[in-house]
Every structure is written in C-alpha cells, then in structure tokens.
C-alpha cells in the first residue's frame, strides 16, 4: 500500500513532466490582445458603510446567461433531445418565490433633517425589545470530536454564564449525527457539517460545505437517526415559519422545501439574490419576522487574486439591499444576526483572504435606519453569531470552542455558557 505522501509526490512529479506548449508565450500574447471580460460588480465592494449598489443590468444579464446555460445543459439529453423533466428534485425552479418586490433602486436613506445623534449607549432605536425567556439549557453544536476536521452534531448542556476562560467542558447530552456522518461518496463529505440551524419541530438542518460539490443540506430528527439528504446548497438557515434558505452557486439564495428538497430562487426586485458569478454566500440569517435576510458574502476579485467578506441586509418586501459595515474598521465583516429590535449584530475584523477562515476580532451593531454601526466588543476571536428564535439571546462561538451568551435586546455580555474543544458552530 502506498502512503499518501508518496502519492502526492508522484502526482507532482507526473505534473512536472508535462512540458509547456512551445507556443505558450505566443498564446498569452494573443490573449492580451483580446478585449478583457466585462466585470460588473453586483455589490459595492469598496465603500464600507455605504449602501450597496443594486444589481446592474449587465451583471444581471450575465447571471441570466449563466443560469440559462446551466439550465440548457440540464435539459438537453444525451441524444440532443430536450427533456423537460428535471434531472433531480433539487434542480432550480424557474418559478421564483412569492416575495413581493418593488422597483426601488436604492436602499432607503434616513432623512437628513431628522438624523438623530449617534447612539453610543446601545439603546435600541426601534421597537422595545422583548424580555428574554430563561436561557436555553442546551445548544446544538458541531464539534470535531477527534481532531480530524470533520464534525459531529451534538447537543451540549449549558451552564450559567461563566467569566471568560473559566468553567469545565460542557456535557454532551446526545449525539445526533456521528463523526464522520456520511458515506465517503456523499456530496461534500470531505468537509463535514459546517453550519446548522433548528427547524420548528426540533429537527436539525445542517449544511456541508461547498467542495467539491456545491454543498449539501441534510436533515436529522430531534433525537438523531439517519440523516436525510435534503438537497444541494450551502448554509441552510431556518426562518420563523420554518422556511429554509440556502445558497446555490451560480443560482443564488433561495428556499428549499423541507419535504421535497425542491429549490426555489429568491428574487429581490425581480433579480436573483446573488453577488458576482465568482462570489458565494458564506452565511444566511432570517429576521425574526421573516421579511429580511442577512447574507454573508465572500467576494472574489479574480484579476487581483483577492477576496473580500461583507454582510448585506436584504429587505425582501422592499426589494432593497443594504451593506452592513462599521465605517473605518479594518478587515471584513461576517456572521450577521438580528437583535430583537431589528438592528444587526455582526463580526468585524475578519481576514479578507480567499483561504482565510471567517474568524473576526469583535462585534459591532448596525442600525439599518441610520445606516451606521458602532463597535461593541473587541478581541473576542468570534467564529459565529446566532440569535434565539424569540430574539432574547445572541450566542457567539469563539475560536477556543467557547459559546458566549449576550442578551438579544442590548447585547449585554452574560459570559460563557458552553465550551467544548473542537466546537465549530452552534445554534439554540
């Protein structure tokens, strides 16, 4: 039996034996004479704190062309005939969700004459927050139990908030999905679960990341059992009515029927909810009323070889898209989640690199009405944020495997409520 080290070295040696084409340089020179491709940014990548631009016509046309090309490939059979039966139940549905849209061209801006002074106290600016119920006594988490990079889905008991850096490991109350949880040939199985959320009946929907397939979404019952492959997509997020949003590469954000796995693209102002063709969502979060969606985007500038992480607030009713950012902050943004009053908590200081994990250094709060954000916490090494269904609590997972609780009304730090080495994500 050959070890992997030898396989990789032999593979590299075989690749090294490939000779460059004799006219390689000439081919490059010829391509330099061609017109460069038109790249139309679908999201404003440069101006932090400013509203995003809407999808431009050319960009939308390109998206439609890509989608049409994929659809055409899907519908043309081996013999060249057209098959109108979807190849799989998860094929994109050309009928968009019934999301009301309006022909708004820019996100709403606050009237200058009524601009309130900056909020430095964290006091909500909209509705009064609900009084949170008692802290949930357990979290559902993805934990890499054996250090192989693949996680199991488990229920962890919580404790009263402990000062950071203290407290024992949390009790594993049950294992819902073993590690490794899938057959070797399952889509995306090499990466294991990376995100999860809870359905109203207590079932857990979790996503396997995006390589080499376009991600896969599974459902497992409240007490575990055999996971069911729901469909293809990334970063499933459960809305207040149980609607599951997922992201599909080249298609955008849509909803996935829990019973059938059927994917239906979401349209915002009549256009697919996506960024550029090289970009993809790395996180989705519904608002408590199900009318807004937060999207974490990883944007790629292939020409420059750089990447950027941003958070976008999408109002599905108004058909608008608004950039969530802390003006002047270094790094990118990620892990947006809603507070009880409609404001948005998000993680700042996230490395922008293509290969970087989305670990930030602090938490800021964005007020959509004002279009501004303020920093609340720093130096926390946050890997994710999630809000309870009642909006009462926000939990933050951190790089050291700790889960820290904040009140959902004013983001007051209540300390660490769970901890487990290898913890990668958690949801209430």
């Amino acid at each position: 039996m050959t070890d992997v080290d030898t396989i990789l070295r032999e593979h590299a040696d075989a690749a090294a034996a490939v000779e460059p084409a004799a006219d390689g340089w000439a081919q490059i020179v010829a391509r330099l004479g061609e017109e460069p491709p038109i790249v139309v940014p679908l999201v404003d990548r440069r101006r932090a704190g400013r509203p995003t631009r809407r999808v431009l016509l050319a960009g939308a046309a390109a998206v439609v062309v890509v989608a049409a090309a994929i659809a055409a490939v899907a519908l043309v059979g081996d013999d060249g005939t057209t098959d109108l039966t979807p190849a799989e139940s998860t094929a994109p549905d050309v009928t968009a969700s019934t999301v009301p849209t309006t022909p708004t061209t820019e996100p709403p801006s606050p009237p200058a004459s009524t601009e309130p002074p900056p909020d430095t106290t964290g006091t909500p600016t909209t509705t009064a927050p609900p009084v949170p119920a008692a802290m949930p006594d357990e979290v559902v988490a993805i934990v890499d139990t054996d250090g192989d990079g693949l996680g199991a889905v488990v229920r962890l008991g919580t404790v009263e908030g402990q000062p950071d850096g203290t407290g024992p490991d949390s009790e594993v109350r049950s294992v819902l999905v073993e590690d490794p949880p899938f057959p070797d040939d399952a889509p995306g199985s090499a990466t294991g679960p990376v995100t999860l959320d809870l359905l109203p009946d207590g079932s857990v929907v979790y996503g396997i990341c995006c390589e080499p397939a376009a991600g896969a979404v599974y459902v497992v019952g409240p007490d575990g059992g055999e996971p069911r492959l729901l469909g293809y997509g990334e970063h499933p997020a459960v809305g207040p009515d149980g609607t599951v949003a997922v992201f599909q590469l080249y298609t955008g954000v849509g909803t996935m029927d829990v019973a059938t796995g059927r994917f239906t693209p979401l349209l915002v102002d009549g256009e697919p909810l996506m960024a550029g063709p090289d970009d993809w969502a790395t996180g989705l979060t519904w608002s408590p009323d199900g009318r807004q969606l937060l999207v974490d985007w990883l944007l790629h500038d292939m020409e420059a070889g750089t990447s950027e992480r941003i958070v976008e607030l999408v109002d599905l009713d108004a058909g608008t898209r608004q950039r969530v950012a802390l003006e002047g902050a270094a790094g990118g943004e990620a892990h947006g989640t809603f507070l009880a009053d409609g404001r948005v908590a998000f993680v700042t200081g996230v490395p922008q690199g293509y290969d970087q994990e989305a670990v930030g250094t602090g938490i800021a709060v964005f007020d959509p009405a004002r279009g501004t954000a303020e920093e609340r916490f720093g130096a926390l090494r946050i890997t994710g944020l999630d809000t309870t269904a009642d909006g009462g609590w926000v939990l933050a997972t951190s790089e050291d495997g700790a889960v820290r609780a904040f009140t959902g009304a004013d983001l007051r730090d209540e300390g660490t409520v769970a901890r487990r080495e290898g913890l990668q994500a958690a949801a209430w």
Partner: protein
Amino acid sequence: MIDGTVSDAGLDGLRAAYDAHARPLLRLAVALTGDAALGEDLVHDAFVRLHRATTPPAPGAEGAYLRRIVTNLAHDHHRHGAVVRRLAPAPRDPAPSAESDALGGDRARAVAAAVAALPDRQRGCVALHYFAGLTDVAVAAELGISVGSVKTHLHRARAALARTLEEHR
C-alpha cells in the same frame, strides 16, 4: 504593439515573469486539475490576469501572486465543474485523453479531485508544499500562518486524503 492595446515595453516584465515562473506554475496547475491542457490554460490565464492587474504585485512577489491566481482558478474550476456535472447528463463513455493517460489517468484525476475537496487551508498547504515545492516555512510565509499550523494542516490533509484515495493506494 499588439492590437493597439499592449505595448512591447509593457510585455518585457511579463515575459521575464513567464520565463521565471511558467514551468513551476504549470506543475502546480496540472497537479491541481489533473489535466495537462486545462493546467496550461489556467497558467496562461494567470499571466493575462497579472498583466491586467490594476494593483500589480510588488517586485519579487510575482511568483506568490501567480500561484495564488492559479490556485484560485483551479478551485473555481472544480466548483464550477461540480455544478455542471450535477446538472448535466452523465457522458456516455468518457474517453481519457492522451495527456491524462500520461499523468496517470484516473488516479491523477482522483488525486486532483481529492485535493480540491479539502478545506481551504489544507488544500492551500498541500498545493504549495507538494505541488509548488515550497518548504513548510515558505508555505507559512505565503499563507500568513505559522509553521506549526502548516504542519497541522498537512497532517490533517494527508489523513483526509488517505480515506478519500483508499482505492488508489
């Protein structure tokens, strides 16, 4: 002058970069894709992007810049290919090309696919260490992580690849 847009003077630096980096980049690209023709195409694309870059790399950093573009392009190829394969009808009888045979045929494609399926950092470490021939220290510098992290990522990557490539061992 080429097509009225590219000056000969502007090509001197690019030609120098091509002479210095084309061959190791081709090795990286072919190893990442398992396909000689595709690898060459990605390398050409990387040089075109270098030439058109609005913020070119600092002198001396062209190699790292080009490796990053090739790695990104290969990654996008796998992602895009996965979507198209999922939506497209399966080919009736895909015949391996002479180039893929020279690379080892099914095994080359399997290795490339297995590496593509690794998490980002593991894949980056494997690509730079094994396919670009960089030392652990150089990999760490290029990815902006510690040498210890490089070793950890490589260890985990080998463990994951051992499972994925079981039938090819």
